[in-house]
């Protein structure tokens, strides 16, 4: 820590003001201007770091400036580096990194939409999070009251890139789809069946979640965190609670840490099994889906036994978990998982022995490793394309430092390998849970409740089943929140789907999309 601080200050005497480590595992570097380009370049090239997320905060009332935060993950270093760049009120603009670093494209535009801070030099500075027909408002500024009622939107609609050429057609799909799925617009340009390019439009379910967090009493904010993305309720809840616990220096009891790890893995198993079935279903191999549905149900039943909720809601709490487990509940874990393991092995055999299914999945929707790295793809989709990242291993949290597991990584990047990552991870998760149950310590399941001190900031990351979930909080007065930034893995991964279209046909899009299975709600917030 000392050497890092010294190095950085000697290297960039003009840019760096202070380097501090207020929360363990998180180094905050305060810059003296809004320009983070030079240091970012230094981190990306010389320190082999990855830019995890970019977000802003309105501190005009307290400090007279806005801040932009750049979170870095350095290869082989478990601590996070957060650059904090002030942006003055009089000149609300910051140099954009999107041209060099496409992974921040949407995130920088979110800052533009929500805070009215201009991403200067952004190659495509159009609206993203607030649609084009929104009036000129910036809801995440503190002077925008939460109860503002906006007039009916009359602005211009989004203009898509035109589809031109002999025999080239446009296929607009969505935002409302035929299945029971979330809204998103996919605009295909096709020449017959082959796809030329795809344009995406998200944020149809933008709910202003980050605004809703502000001034919310912290215990209630846990429930809001759980509803960010329904299929990752526990992961988002845990990420939020961890952030608060780090900020307020609450020691989570060992037992609760192991319980959380078990529940995080159960969420992963249930979703991965569901996805394996859904991928098979999209290529018309319905029998595997029927089988997967049955196995997934066993896990959901276990979830209910353990938490009272099939999707693990209402279990995680600040300082631990809400309910302790009895002996018979712990026995139910072992008993159910033995069945799940056997049945899942059968399902895997069915999937792998079906030549017609393999034929559909192999070499379909290839995401090349270099593109995955460039776009900052995380999670399952990343690991299938050579992006060797797993928060559980790289930044151990909860009980994961006591639990051994393997991180499956493949280079092929096609639908079949995204399925394979899921299959491997179910196996690993089962081992993690077994080890966690065996080591489950006795003791309290929740730290005593205490008021949260104001003005504390902390970052937390959790490896949800889909990928890296990041929450950053600043606590406020009266046990309330000042700001909560939420980053769902989907926001990095959506643009990657566009890159997989090359050489594919329209009829294969649904299975490619399903192999990513991204959250609309988590992206839109």
């Amino acid at each position, binding site marked *: 820590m000392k050497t890092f601080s010294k190095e950085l200050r000697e290297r960039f005497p003009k840019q760096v003001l202070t380097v501090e480590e207020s929360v363990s595992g998180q180094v905050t570097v305060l810059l003296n201007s809004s320009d983070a380009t030079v240091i970012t370049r230094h981190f990306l090239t010389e320190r082999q770091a990855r830019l995890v997320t970019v977000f802003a905060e309105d501190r005009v009332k307290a400090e007279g400036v806005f801040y932009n935060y750049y979170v870095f993950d350095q290869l082989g270093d478990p601590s996070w580096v957060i650059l904090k760049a002030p942006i003055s009120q009089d000149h609300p603009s910051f140099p954009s990194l999107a041209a060099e670093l496409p992974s921040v494209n949407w995130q920088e535009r979110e800052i533009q939409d929500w805070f009215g801070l201009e991403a200067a030099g952004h190659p495509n500075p159009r609206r993203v999070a607030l649609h084009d027909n929104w009036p000129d408002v910036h809801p995440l500024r503190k002077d925008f009251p939460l109860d503002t009622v906006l007039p009916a939107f009359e602005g211009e609609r989004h203009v898509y890139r035109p589809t031109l050429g002999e025999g080239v057609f446009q296929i607009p799909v969505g935002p409302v789809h035929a299945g029971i799925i979330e809204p998103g617009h996919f605009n295909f340009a096709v020449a017959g069946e082959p796809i030329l390019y795809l344009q995406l439009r998200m944020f149809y379910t933008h709910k202003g979640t980050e605004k809703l967090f502000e001034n919310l009493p912290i215990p209630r904010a846990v429930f809001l965190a759980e509803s960010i993305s329904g299929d990752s309720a526990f992961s988002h809840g845990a990420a939020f609670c961890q952030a608060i616990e780090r900020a307020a220096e609450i020691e989570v009891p060992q037992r609760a840490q192991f319980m959380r790890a078990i529940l995080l893995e159960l969420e992963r198993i249930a979703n991965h099994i569901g996805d394996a079935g859904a991928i098979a279903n999209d290529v018309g191999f319905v029998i595997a889906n*029927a089988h997967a549905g049955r196995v997934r149900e066993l896990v959901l039943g276990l979830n209910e036994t353990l938490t009272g909720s099939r999707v693990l809601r209402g279990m995680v709490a600040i300082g631990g978990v809400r309910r302790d487990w009895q002996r018979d509940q712990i026995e139910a874990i072992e008993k159910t998982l033995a069945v799940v393991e056997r049945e899942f092995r059968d399902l895997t055999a069915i999937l792998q022995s079906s030549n*017609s299914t393999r*034929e559909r999945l192999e070499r379909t929707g290839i995401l090349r490793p270099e593109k995955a790295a460039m776009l900052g793809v995380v999670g399952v989709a990343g690991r299938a394309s050579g992006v060797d990242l797993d928060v559980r291993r790289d930044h151990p949290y909860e009980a994961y430092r006591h639990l051994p597991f393997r991180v499956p990584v493949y280079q092929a990047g096609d639908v079949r390998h995204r399925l394979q990552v899921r299959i491997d991870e179910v196996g690993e998760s089962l081992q993690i849970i077994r080890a966690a149950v065996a080591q489950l310590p006795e003791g309290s399941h929740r730290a005593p409740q205490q008021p949260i001190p104001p003005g504390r900031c902390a970052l937390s990351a959790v490896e949800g089943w889909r990928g890296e979930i990041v929450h950053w909080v600043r606590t406020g007065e009266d046990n309330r929140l000042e700001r909560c930034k939420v980053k769902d893995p989907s926001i990095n991964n959506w643009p990657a789907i566009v890159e997989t279209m090359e050489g594919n046909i329209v009829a294969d899009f649904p299975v490619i999309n399903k192999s990513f299975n991204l959250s609309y709600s988590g992206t839109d917030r």
Partner: protein
Amino acid sequence: MIQRLIENATQLFLLLVLAPLVTGVIRTLKARLQTRRGPGILQPYRDLRKLFGKGMVIPETASWIFTATPWVVFFSTILAGLMIPMVAAKAPLGLFGGVLAVIYLLGLGRFFLALSGLDTGSSFGGLGSSREMTISALAEPAMMLAIFTVAIGAGSTGLTEIAGAAIGQTWRFLAPAQMFAFAALALVLIAETGRIPVDNPDTHLELTMIHEAMILEYSGPYLALVEWAASIKQLVLMTLLINCFWPFGLQPTWFGFGALQGIGWLLAKLLLLCCAIVLLETVNAKMRLFRVPELLAVAFTLGSLALVSTFLF
């Protein structure tokens, strides 16, 4: 005259009533193989009743083609159905054209369906129409070759004669030419009825649909007509396949008890074919769209082999 009326009426009744049942049986058997209970074999009837009782939404961009198509499709399919031997070798409406007329009546229905898919100007309709025409352009020659093989054996393109000749030689289907022709026609049947591995009749994914994409804009009674016609077409093709190649129990003519016996055999053979289709659909995933032509090329090759071997053996 009255005899002929009764024949026509019986076959019409069988076509209209049996077709949804076949669809229902296939769905229920599929559900059972997936360890689901399924909605029951009578569900297609309930669906039809529901759709006939509903109002319709007709796109503003639709022309007369859109409103004419359900009728054209429905009646051309019924007409084709009356021209094939179902219960007895003698088809009720064997007046003109024989097997060629059957193929082209079904072709007429498909032509109008594809037109209506394009007519509304919706992107999915066009997608479905283009796919359907690609597949049928490849399926039709294979079907022709298979049918000609049988026709040469019988010395006529009249379906009554073909089925009549088949009755005389119960075990003829073991001849190489017949086996090739049967395989070719079976592949065509899968492609034409939109079943896995060519099309998935149960999908909700618009981007992967073929038949369903063409009829996406239909609702209410029109949708009912189109759906009903699709299941009748499926029955017609299945009956054609089983009566040309497995003539067991097929009666030479329509008369009292024999006709009942004929219906019994027909149902038994249809059930057997349903089971085969269900097994095929369950163990296979849907093919990649661009691989479907390869499957139909196989059907075409089998059809050619069948035709060649008629002269060799």
